């Protein structure tokens, strides 16, 4: 069955103060994934 977005979740998603902290968290998390680097997959 499809999950639904509850009213509380919606409040959290759109509350600017909570979202400001989510913004900082997300920016860092995304940066870490980018900075986490990349490389090859084949063993030499």
């Amino acid at each position, binding site marked *: 069955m499809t999950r639904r977005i509850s009213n509380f979740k919606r409040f959290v998603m*759109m509350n600017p103060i909570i979202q400001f902290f989510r913004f900082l968290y997300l920016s860092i998390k995304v940066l870490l994934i980018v900075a986490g680097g*990349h490389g090859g997959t084949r063993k030499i």
Partner: protein
Amino acid sequence: MAKIVILGAGISGHVAASHLRRKLDNTHEVVVVSPNSNYQWIPSNIWVGVGRMKSDQILFPLAPLYKKKNIGFKQAKVTSFFPEGDSDNAKPFVMAEYVSEEKRGETEKITYDYLINATGPKLNFEATEGLNPGTNKTYSVCTYTHANHAWQGLQALIGELKQGKEARIVIGTGHAKATCQGAAFEYILNVEQELRRQNVRDKAKITWISNEYELGDFGMDGMLLSYGSNIMKSHEMVEMVFEDRDIEWILGAGVNKIEDGVAHFETLNGEHKTIEYDFAMLIPSFSGHGFKAFDKNNQDITEKLFKGFMIVDADYTPKPYEEWTVQDWPETYQNPSYPNIFAPGIAFAPPHSISKPRKSPSGTEIFPSPPRTGMPSGITAKLVADNIIDSIMQQKESLHHKGSMGNMGAACIASAGFGMTKGSGISITTFPIVPDYKKYPDTQGRKLGKTFGEIGLAGHWLKLALHYAFIYKAKMKPFWYLIPE
């Protein structure tokens, strides 16, 4: 002294050119050949397509920047490749035809020591009968011109909805093998929000149509992701969002013909159906540009360079889905026949799709082609530039920098609506892009901590921040290189 020619000034071409120019002194020549006089930040076309940004906010002219930075610029399109030169030229070259006003139609042999093919995809509208942006009530947002047309069409429809008309809007993929579902996903959510903002949401039915087997496949075989304290599949997350926004969906649909306000499609279970609409945005299939290649004796050697897109260091041996591995994916984007040619971004031929291939009973392949989003396009371009720089400096081939999509993460911040307080974004990150089922057997080939989803206003702010950051970076303003790809 080396001459590096870069074909294309999209995300990959421009990233490669700017890094090469920054790291190589002026004794080396960096030349960009591209038909468009402007750089465009394609991801923000979504907002142009709903009238929330003007196209001049997402583009800038390349010639003045390149002049200032000592990067050569030829506003031309490449037509053929001569990687061994020809009877008149010992040096390899590409044949280009100018499209700029002053030189339109003139051709030039552009010689090179290193060639970076960053020509991205051809938007192959012709592959779907009647799919032509701006006609048959059907639009695209793949370029800023298309996005402008789409907004004109949508705006006209909103006007009619305000007069009381009821309408259907269809958004998704316009071909059985189309990719870039993410862009269509962003657009459908932005259109839905725009209708709400204009108080006409109740007048329109909105339908998602896609070649995906499940929602949230995105051409990446879907993903298992962490969402807050939950673990869910991407299809559950997208279903939740579509339910919330009252968006219907049709899946496994290979659109094969467009008539005025009608899309014809075949489904994976073999049915042939149609859907009528008042406005549609359908992503076309992407293909190679149909370039030709010749050896020094003018013999056709196209198959050494191209397989639709450009051949690179991937394993192209045909094999069944169950035998695909991440090792099939390229690491250096170097052409195996001509080591001074590279193809980062969308320009390289992928070894196979990422999504599981599926066919209808009549044999029509209906599944997404592999996407290559902005982040991997930038990363692969930078690593190609770095290998060329090392090779020039060390005066011998160096392929030290590697970046397989099987060992690279991607962040996709999908806009779900524009607005500083009412906007929303769905931020999804994945690691790796191509699932590695051996390394991560229990989590659908991906590392769970690095594969997560998040919905909310913060996503919109992040997408907007990235818009400004990447345009700043593309304009090569002070310390631009500190902003990662």
